[in-house]
């Protein structure tokens, strides 16, 4: 009888101790001390800011344009980029650890951006614009890295490139790099304003404008001495006009507002973007801040003007009267409704043709392509409902296309030269893109 109460008491004591111990040891939310919660939210704010900044810079670099397949998951790659040397299969840059760049540290990411060497030590093909991205600061590279690590990982294996011999040999890139690659972050020019330098940083670096607006030679390199002098875009068959010639897209006599409108809105009172530049505006430039676009405009406007070729002679500008008359008739019937009797256009909805450098520049490729395929400027935040131009390739034959393009290149004191039906025919064979 005496045993039972003792056991009961003992059990009660054990139970009580256990209850107290459980109460003390049970995991529970940490008491929110004011100091630590502020620190936590400061950390997450800093992370949010870093990722937001990285997203903005990734827009400026237009990563999405190449690293996303049409209709595919964002940044998951698997898109064939045709080059004169064969197809480059653009890699997955989502943070999937197996198939993407999930294992890249910020250091390795910066080395890739800055030197064109991947995490596993491979030399990158210069389809990746590392010759431009080398100008990007470490700080900005870290922000882009943080952003890319934050997007949804997608498991999608990269495909091997389909490059022809000898370009399939990465060792050759050593030679290419010696010739065309200069490693180094952007160096501010102390003689210029902060705004000009910001513009220069964006144009030369993330904007990688030189990839199209500097002629590419047979080795796929662009020579620094010819920077921004324009050239045909390989495999897209659009001409990227010179940014340093007032006869092409040189912006010396444009107002800053006209330049920022073209870059950010896609349409301006001087001209309109189509084709590859429409893609850049749609995916990249429309998202940049007014201040950054203005900085780019200031920098571009100040590029030294150096015409690489003399203006056409009056002999070169001679047009047979019957061609001119045919062109005028077609213009009045098909074009004048939108572009006006004197080629003045109805800007910014319909661009002017009179005095428009993209019409009169020495390469007529873009004008011919527009007549054949038409085009819609990109729908942007500031111009979501753009006015478009219809294709005429099923209405006008080669002679008629040549006549009307000749007409708009020489009428209204335009300084262009005539084009031939053969030139129209060459471009007619290509798919619109």
């Amino acid at each position, binding site marked *: 009888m005496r045993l039972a109460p003792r056991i009961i008491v003992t059990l009660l004591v054990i139970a009580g101790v256990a209850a107290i111990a459980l109460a003390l040891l049970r995991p529970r939310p940490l008491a929110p001390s004011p100091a630590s919660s502020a620190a936590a939210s400061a950390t997450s704010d800093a992370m949010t800011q870093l990722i937001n900044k990285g997203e903005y810079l990734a827009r400026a670099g237009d990563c999405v344009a190449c690293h996303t397949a049409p*209709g595919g998951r964002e940044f998951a790659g698997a898109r064939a980029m045709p080059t004169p040397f064969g197809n480059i299969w653009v890699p997955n840059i989502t943070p999937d650890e197996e198939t993407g760049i999930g294992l890249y540290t910020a250091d390795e990411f910066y080395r890739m951006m800055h030197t064109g060497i991947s995490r596993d030590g491979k030399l990158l093909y210069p389809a990746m614009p590392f010759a431009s991205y080398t100008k990007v600061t470490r700080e900005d590279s870290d922000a882009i890295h943080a952003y890319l690590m934050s997007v949804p990982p997608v498991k999608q294996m990269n495909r091997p490139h389909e490059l022809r011999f000898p370009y399939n040999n990465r060792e050759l890139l050593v030679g290419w790099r010696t010739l065309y690659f200069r490693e180094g972050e952007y160096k501010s020019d102390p003689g210029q304003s902060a705004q000009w330098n910001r513009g220069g940083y964006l144009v030369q670096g993330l904007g990688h404008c030189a990839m199209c607006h500097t002629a590419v030679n047979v080795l796929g390199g662009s020579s620094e001495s010819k920077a921004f002098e324009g050239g045909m875009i390989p495999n897209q068959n659009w001409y990227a006009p010179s940014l340093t010639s007032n006869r092409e897209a040189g912006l010396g006599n444009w107002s800053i507002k006209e330049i920022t409108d073209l870059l950010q809105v896609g349409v301006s009172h001087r001209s309109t973007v189509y084709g590859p530049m429409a893609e850049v505006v749609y995916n990249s430039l429309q998202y940049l801040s007014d201040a950054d676009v203005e900085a780019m405009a200031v920098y571009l406007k100040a590029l030294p003007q150096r015409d690489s070729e003399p203006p056409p002679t009056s002999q070169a500008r001679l047009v047979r009267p019957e061609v001119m008359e045919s062109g005028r008739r077609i213009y009045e019937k098909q074009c004048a409704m939108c572009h006006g009797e004197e080629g003045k256009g109805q800007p910014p*909805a319909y661009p002017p043709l009179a005095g428009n450098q993209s019409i009169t520049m020495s390469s007529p490729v873009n004008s011919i392509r527009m007549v054949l395929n038409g085009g*819609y400027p990109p*729908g942007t935040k500031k111009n979501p409902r753009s006015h478009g131009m*219809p294709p005429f390739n*099923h209405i006008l034959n080669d002679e008629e296309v040549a006549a009307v393009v000749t007409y708009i290149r020489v009428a209204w004191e335009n300084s262009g030269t005539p084009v031939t039906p053969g030139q129209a025919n060459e471009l007619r064979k290509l798919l*619109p893109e």
Partner: protein
Amino acid sequence: MKKLLAIGPALSFISAHRLPRRRTTRRGPWNAVGAALLGAALLAPDLALAQHEALPAFKQLNSMEARVQGCVTCHGQSGQGTANGYFPRIAGKPAGYLYNQLVAFRDGTRRYPPMNYLVAYLPDPYLREIAEHFAQLRPPFAAREQPTVDPGVLARGEALVAQGDALKGIPACAACHGAGLTGMNPGIPGLVGLRPTYIAAQLTRWRVGERHAAEPDCMKRISTRLSDTDIAAVSSWLASRDPPRDPSPESSNLVRMPFACGSQGPR
């Protein structure tokens, strides 16, 4: 030859953008067959009118009418179609259907390079607005075409459209595209006012897997059960019909459809 009849228009359609002067420059073997189908269209009395209707024209710069000028040389000022048999009438088709096509052209899931290029950089809300613009237009129909196939083929076409073919598991076109074949909101297109070349080309592309719709893709199931002759019969018969008095699409999902259709959304 039978094969050419159906495949010919499809191939020609694919390459139409490369052959603008197709009647005088490059006449492929299938073009001769296509020409038979096209003949009526090219000789139609409204040709001059159709050409005029394909010229750019608008009243107000800040209007949808001005904004869709990019469409008019192929689809006509009011979306009524043009003299070219490969470019469809788009006026009055359900807005949901037109929107789905514009998005598919932009994203490359429906492939036709001239359209892929034109709408590549246009945002969803604007594509929606363009679709709604053409969906509410009711331009007059072009004169119907005189059928060039024999009466037996036409009878087969009529039977497929009205009753389908139970033995081959083909439902009637009218079961989904509407009793008057004017389509059904929101996603099923009308079949009235389309030329035989266009209808045959689309059915063929579906059958060979070049055209798709949202899953479940009912047209994939149907087109793979159609023979070349069936396709020629259906497209000739459809194109030979007088236009309906009211071309508006039927209301959404009032009837149970024989095949589930991804473009109609959940019931």
